[in-house]
């Protein structure tokens, strides 16, 4: 029972990341009809927002280390700490939450710039060319980040207060044996909130209603005198923000490096396909489902029966779904079925 709960949490966690990235991918596909291979790069850029914020906050000056008497030793103290003492240290400690505030406008700008600068020229081009150009863009972004930050993962820890683990077992009456890191629980909650917000925006506001109408029939909405293109651009920006936030929040779980975007991209595409291209609910459902399945497949009991299943389970499911039900779990009939 303990093990199952633990794996469930693990799966929900991973599924949260998949769902967030896949949600953005599928929104972009549903609105603009563009297959965006650079979406993983947006996820990575979000993560590196957190890295940059942390680097900015910890710009340091050299001061003499008084504790060492035998020779002149110097240590680096961040300016923030030097100016404000403990308050400064706390600010540095909260680098990751702070970077969320910075990531939102930044990722929105990046998303809008990307759509206006590149993607819009590819609406009418075949999917293969969209894949290729965004693949090229992903390489460029990835290499720029590598040139700037180096090839090694950069640790960006969560704030001290929540560094420990929560006693999840106690909450559900399983005793003290099940503990789980606080940050991962927060990530799960965060993913839930972001997904809920995205759905609320699209389903409960007039703006979102028009966007959905545009997804269903772009031309009619355009003929009604609505600038649907501009709304779609903004929706693209939103998708970029969602991917970026997923990246920011993921940094304490996995120290970011330049190829994390590519790693997640392949999986997220699989998630989108399993959920159904252009289906928002499908992306979320498939994201969590595949996350959970993957974490259960990596249990030793399962692996001893089917060795290597944890490595391929997601792809295997994608293959089966594509062959049996090509429109995906919740895909609309007739959308990209061939």
């Amino acid at each position, binding site marked *: 029972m303990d093990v199952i709960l633990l794996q469930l949490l693990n799966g929900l966690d991973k599924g949260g990341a998949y769902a967030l990235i896949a949600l953005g991918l599928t929104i972009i596909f549903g609105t603009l009809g563009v297959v965006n291979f650079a979406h993983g790069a947006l996820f990575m850029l979000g993560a590196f927002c957190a890295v940059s914020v942390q680097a900015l906050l910890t710009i340091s000056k050299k001061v003499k280390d008084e504790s060492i008497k035998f020779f002149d030793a110097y240590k680096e103290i961040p300016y923030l700490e030097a100016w404000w003492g403990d308050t400064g240290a706390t600010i540095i400690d909260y680098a990751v939450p702070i970077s969320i505030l910075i990531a939102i406008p930044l990722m929105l700008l990046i998303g809008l710039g990307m759509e206006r600068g590149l993607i819009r020229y590819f609406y009418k081009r075949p999917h*293969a060319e969209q894949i290729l150009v965004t693949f*090229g863009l992903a390489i*460029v972004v990835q290499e720029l980040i590598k040139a700037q930050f180096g090839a090694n993962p950069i640790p960006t820890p969560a704030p001290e207060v929540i560094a420990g683990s929560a006693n999840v077992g106690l909450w559900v009456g399983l005793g003290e044996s099940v503990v789980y890191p606080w940050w991962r629980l927060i990530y799960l909650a965060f993913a839930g909130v972001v997904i809920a917000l995205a759905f609320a925006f699209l389903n409960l506001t007039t703006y979102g209603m028009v966007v959905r109408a545009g997804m269903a029939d772009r031309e009619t909405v355009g003929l009604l005198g609505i600038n649907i293109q501009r709304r779609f651009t903004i929706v693209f920006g939103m998708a970029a923000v969602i991917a970026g936030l997923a990246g920011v929040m993921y940094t304490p779980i996995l120290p970011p490096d330049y190829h994390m975007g590519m790693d997640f991209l392949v999986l997220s595409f699989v998630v989108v396909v399993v959920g159904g291209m252009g289906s928002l609910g499908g992306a979320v459902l498939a994201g969590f489902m595949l996350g959970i399945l993957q974490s259960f497949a990596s249990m030793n009991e399962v692996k001893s029966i089917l060795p290597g299943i944890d490595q391929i389970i997601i792809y295997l499911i994608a293959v089966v779904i594509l062959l049996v039900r090509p429109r995906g779990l919740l895909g609309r009939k007739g959308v990209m079925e061939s």
Partner: protein
Amino acid sequence: MMFAGLSRNDKLLFAGFTIAALAMPLLAWPVGANYPDLLQKFAIYGIFAIGFNILFGLTGYLSFGHAAFLGVGSYAAVWMFKGVTMNVIPAVIFGVMVSGMFAALIGFVSLRRSGIYFSILTLAFAQMSYNLAYSVLTPITNGETGLQLRQDDARILDRMFVEQSEGLPSTNLFGLEMSGYPGFYFCCVLLIIAFFIALRIQRSPFGMMLRAIKTNQVRMNYTGFNTRPYALTAFIISGMYAGLAGSLLAVTDPLAGAERMQWTASGEVVLMTILGGAGTLVGPILGAGLIKYFENIFSSYNDGLLAESFSFLPDFLNDALVFVIGPFVGEGWSLLLGIVFMAIVIFLPGGLMEGLARIHGWYRRRGQGDAGRNVAKQAAE
């Protein structure tokens, strides 16, 4: 007989290609690329790109998992070296056959879908193979270390007929060692054969069928053709080309690693084909050669070397140039590749071959324009 049914232009093209391929060491000499290791790469990745082009350029299916076949070919060839003989012929044949069978399996499933779904299916299969090669299949693939030759390998045939020497044996073609120029010429001959087969395919009714699938598959189906066997055949042929390239990689350097199957490696052959020109015969080889050449040149540069090569300039100019170009060489070579690739997809979707065609057309039109104007002038006089 061999050339029956080929037009005069095709014969010329093939003759020109053969001469160019055989004279590659000479042609590459002015640009400083005439060492065998690099030339071997040109030939091997040329074969890989030709094969990819049969699937993508002709049939219109964008596979994002082609490196899997390359990897399988490498593994199969190395196993042949380990188990039977260091002669390269059986290894190459075995590599091609195994990857052909592998391609038949994957193609049979993947080709049930087209468009982006096909891309994702192939990607999924390639990632599966890659992950499995790293984990469960370690007895076959030797995991992260990669499959290597060892002194105590079986090598049944070799032990029967050839006297064993100290140290690791090297790959050979009936005694001729497959390193350096002999290795290159072996790859080169196979490249020429591969090119010839691709040429024949492109000009055959079968090739016409493949192009019809690319242009309008729905219409083909309505006309009563079952397109899937044709697409599957193209897929298998293309996989066999990749397997050939993979086994040649093992021939020139007998080890095989799983990283050859990673999807970024599949992306590389896509880059090559697009850069040169998908759907053309020479384009993919051109793209493969260019990418491998510039990879080799640029990734060996660093800021120091760069400063040296601009040392004739005044200091501030030198610094500025190093600052501007620096990020694109050495480690940053992929950045340059990405930018060039994006530019090609945006402005020249037909690749370099389309660029050449455009320049050619422009000259011709200008020539005609001049001629027309002269005629007008004469008429006026």
